[in-house]
């Protein structure tokens, strides 16, 4: 009898742990294909046939169509430079440089990857439209309230993510080769 109870218990615990581990793994970027660059994470092979099983399973669930190798590269930040989760009640400064690419865009999305409604109707910036200093450096300010310069509105108080897409970038699959200093810094200025 005791044996039977043990076996049932092992099955229940094993099954539950397996499912919890899977749910966690598939709602995060693959741990085996992640390059960190300051605040940014890159899934270097998401758009190639070398994508690992975790990446494939995650993409199959979300319906995302990642940029293919050669098209570009996506960098995602869910935390600021100091590792604190991005919070809609705070103000962040993003800049001053982005890695080499023909074009890049920086957009603000909710935790599952959709733009966040805001009164300004602005969901991101393009490298080709942004206001820059004389030396080409830029600052994008993510904040709930209106800011001078490049204001990226935060439409909701919860957590959010920043997505930097590099189009036609020479970096491609060699994401690991990006100089950490080439990625924009994500600096928290203050919180309401």
């Amino acid at each position, binding site marked *: 009898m*005791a*044996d039977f109870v*043990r076996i049932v*218990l*092992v*099955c229940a*615990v*094993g*099954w*539950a*742990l*397996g*499912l919890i*581990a*899977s749910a966690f*793994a*598939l709602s995060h970027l693959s741990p085996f294909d992640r390059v960190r660059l300051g605040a940014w994470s890159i899934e270097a092979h*998401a*758009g*190639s*046939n070398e*994508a690992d*099983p*975790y990446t*494939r*399973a995650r*993409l*199959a*669930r*979300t*319906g*995302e*169509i*990642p940029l*293919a*190798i*050669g*098209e*570009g590269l*996506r960098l995602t930040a869910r935390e600021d430079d100091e590792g604190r989760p991005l919070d809609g009640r705070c103000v962040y400064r993003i800049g001053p440089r982005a890695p080499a690419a*023909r*074009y890049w*865009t920086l*957009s603000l*999305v909710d935790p*599952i*990857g*959709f*733009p*966040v*409604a805001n009164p300004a109707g602005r*969901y*991101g910036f*393009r490298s*080709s*439209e942004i206001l820059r200093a004389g030396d080409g450096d830029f600052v994008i300010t993510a904040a709930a309230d209106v800011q001078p310069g490049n204001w990226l509105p935060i*439409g909701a108080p919860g957590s959010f993510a920043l*997505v930097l897409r590099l*189009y*036609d970038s020479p970096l491609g699959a060699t994401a690991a080769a990006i100089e950490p200093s080439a990625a924009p810094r994500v600096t928290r200025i203050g919180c309401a």
Partner: protein
Amino acid sequence: MTAPSGARGLVLFIAASAILAAIVHLVVVLVTPVVASGDAYARLAPLGKLNETVALPRADPGDHMLPDADPAVAMAFCRYDLGAGPIRVRAPIGRAFSSISFHSPRGPAFYALTDRAGARGAIEAVLGTPDDVRALAAHDDEESPTRDLRIAAPEREGYVMIRVFSELPSLYPEAEADAKRLTCAPEPAPR
């Protein structure tokens, strides 16, 4: 067999649970791409007929069809079935960056081209099964070699996605119009 007791029983219990958990986890991860009903192809396929170019709505807070779309980039796709022969994929090059990627129903793109690979004002390629591509190559005229780029698709079905970058918000409608100019047309098979 006597039931293990005390510390040894606990260790066995934890080990057995962990092994079972690992097996369940691996099976879930490996099976998900095969059984997932919300992947990109499942979302796109109902939107258009074969070889028809369908523009995707712009990334918007109110539209949850495809996650992870760039609001600065216009997208359109066409679905193909190479059972009836190869197709010719063509898109005129616009003013900024554009790219075409080729996808099977599952998994990442198997091929991609950017406007840099374009010639004579367009990105163009012939997509076929590996047999089609071999047959086309066998019929090449040595006197006037083809300028076609031929791509062998790993599976019969799939979709072609175009992305067109808009340099400014006001240029988005133009990018959208360019994306809609993607064509996927049946290509006569060689005889």
